[in-house]
């Protein structure tokens, strides 16, 4: 298929791997930020192809995985109300809250629906004025503009029965938190291609300067990732640290200015709790005061809902790239996608689920698990 096969070519992939083998003179630890990138790495077995010594650790870029427990609890509480239709993206429904998940709320009669776009939620609200329609908005900078647009449009139309439970997170503060950790092992980052499509990569230059760390904004196809890895290793071997853009067919330096404008109009930066990691200052987006009438958290009085996340959990270390999913004694036995113990096993973008889904046989063969 055009525009896909070109990025999945075995011969070119083998060529890049051979070049990597020539350039890498010592071990390097790299992190891919995005869950979508983790998914591709596992699905295509790219970790299997890499020369020994090039280690990929999987970053916190799975929006489903990092959504705070208390946010899930809020969504569940709101969805359980008889007058509410809660609408979200598909994989949020399986994420366990403190006591249940949205699939169970749905099975108990709650009106929970899945859409591909927040504008579908708007449409539903217009067509069903007697329902209080709540869009559960999670995700990074990638999904935030469309969600902002939905709220902006709802306000413009004076749509009274639409609101949003917004829990967006931002990538650069997470990288800053990872790099500031005394336990950090990461020497180079594959930057989040779709986030940068929206935001550009100016912010990543600040991070690069602050920590003297190479960052290559990467795409999501196998050759994108291999090329990004090669660019990172080349920089590291040459002792350079700059921001480079591998995903130039989608990402520009400035990003999507219209999307940034609507983001700034509707959302403001706030502190945010990340599941498995904890609070990170100025790492989230919440609705501005002018849009308070559309803030489900206020409308339904769930602002006070809190949930204690266990302080010690390997998912925290997995999400920070300190441990691999297979380092967990529960992986694949007590913790599976049917009975997830932690969020990274829930979404297919989560590192644990990606390992479980695609790599279990290799682990069995190597005796690793």
């Amino acid at each position, binding site marked *: 298929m055009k525009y896909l096969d070109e990025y999945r070519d075995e011969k070119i992939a083998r060529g890049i791997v051979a070049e990597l083998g020539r350039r890498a003179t010592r071990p390097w630890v790299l992190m891919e930020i995005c869950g979508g990138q983790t998914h591709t790495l596992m699905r295509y*077995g790219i970790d299997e192809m890499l020369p020994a010594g090039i280690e990929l650790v999987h970053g916190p870029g799975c929006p489903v995985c990092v959504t705070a427990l208390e946010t899930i609890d809020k969504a569940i509480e709101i969805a359980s109300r008889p007058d509410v239709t809660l609408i979200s993206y598909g994989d949020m429904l399986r994420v366990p809250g403190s006591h249940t998940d949205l699939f169970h709320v749905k099975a108990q009669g709650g009106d929970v629906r899945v859409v591909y776009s927040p504008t579908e939620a708007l449409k539903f609200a217009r067509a069903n004025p007697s329902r209080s329609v709540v869009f559960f908005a999670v995700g990074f900078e990638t999904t935030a503009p469309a969600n902002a647009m939905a709220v902006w449009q709802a306000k413009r139309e004076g749509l009274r029965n639409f609101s949003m439970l917004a829990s967006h997170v931002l990538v650069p503060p997470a990288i800053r938190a990872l790099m500031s950790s005394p336990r950090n092992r990461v020497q180079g980052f594959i930057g989040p291609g779709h986030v940068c499509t929206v935001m550009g990569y100016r912010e990543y230059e600040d991070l690069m300067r602050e920590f003297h760390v190479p960052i290559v904004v990467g795409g999501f196809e196998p050759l994108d990732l291999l090329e990004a890895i090669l660019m990172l290793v080349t920089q590291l071997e040459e002792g350079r640290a700059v921001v480079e853009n591998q995903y130039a067919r989608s990402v520009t330096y400035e990003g999507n200015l219209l999307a940034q404008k609507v983001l700034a109009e509707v959302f403001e930066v706030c502190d945010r709790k990340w599941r498995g990691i904890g609070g990170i200052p100025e790492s989230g987006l919440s609705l501005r005061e002018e849009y308070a009438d559309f803030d489900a958290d206020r409308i339904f009085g769930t602002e006070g809902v809190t949930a204690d996340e266990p302080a010690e959990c390997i*998912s925290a270390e997995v999400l920070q790239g300190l441990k691999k999913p297979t380092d967990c004694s529960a992986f694949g036995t007590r*913790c599976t996608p049917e009975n997830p113990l932690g969020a990274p096993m829930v979404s297919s973008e989560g590192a644990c689920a990606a390992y479980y889904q695609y790599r279990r046989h290799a682990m069995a063969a190597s005796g690793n698990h």
Partner: protein
Amino acid sequence: MPQETKLDLALNCPIPIAARDSILLGHGSGGRMSGDLLRNVLLPALQNPVLDRLDDQAIVDVGGSLIAFTTDSFVVKPLFFPGGDIGTLAVNGTVNDLAMGGAEPLFLSLALILEEGLPLDTLRRVMESIRVAAALAGVAVVTGDTKVVEKGSGDGLFVNTSGIGLVPSAVRLSADQSRPGDRVLLSGTIGDHGITILSQREGLEFESAVASDTAALHTLVADMLRASSEIRCLRDPTRGGLSSSLNEIAARSRVGIELEEKAIPIREEVQGACEMLGLDPLYVANEGKLLAIVEPTAAEMILDAMHQHPLGHNARIIGTVTDAHRGMVTLRTRLGTSRIVDLLSGDQLPRIC
């Protein structure tokens, strides 16, 4: 689910939600949750040697004749879609379940559950489709039942069909028959039906020229069996897609199955839709395709026979049965690496980004 009671709370991971005290949509997905429901709740009440084979149809000896018997319910939404409707599915689905046992389909039953308010015109259209599909397949609907439920208690129209067919005495097809070395044959492109239905759903308006592949496969099966008797097992990979059928065969025969990604035929429109929606076509439903596990030396002969049939033009050898990774299906990717094709837990969920 014994693991629920043995959670190691000392691990202190965030929150297990394992207690499944009610039916979730995922129980109907054809994936692991469906299997759990079958094993833990349904089968214990019913055990007998015929049922325990868990093939798409039961094959019973009645006075020396081998009778294939099967049943299937249809709850598709929307009722009408490009390529067919709930009526064509209800006929072809049951005919195919019989055909996968090597049976010649003979008779069907038809049970309708109608929701109060269903337009009669809709019902007439569906009945006309049933008439045409049955005539094309050469089966007669010889008994039936109609029930009406209150508005809100159904979704317009649910259909159940059961079917009876006759199995030639030399034929013995079952999911536990595969042996290492066997070849895996697929009759054509995957995912057409599932993507067609998705593209028709409210809220997912993407344009697509793809149509459901719903078709009765028994004449294709007859041609294949005429070409060679060395067919171990046939499956029509409906809900849960290729992955569910192959995982079932791998588990029942205690073998590994290795697929070649490049060999699996898929239409560009289906591939494109799957990429856009974040779905894996290996899990998307088909309604007119079959998988055959065949003895290696007979593979080419059977493939030739498939190519001669209009429903087997695009047939390919897509993989091999192995003695490595027993019980698992693996895939040699386009990059030459290997990965698992796992059973999904529940429904395939659209990814967030």
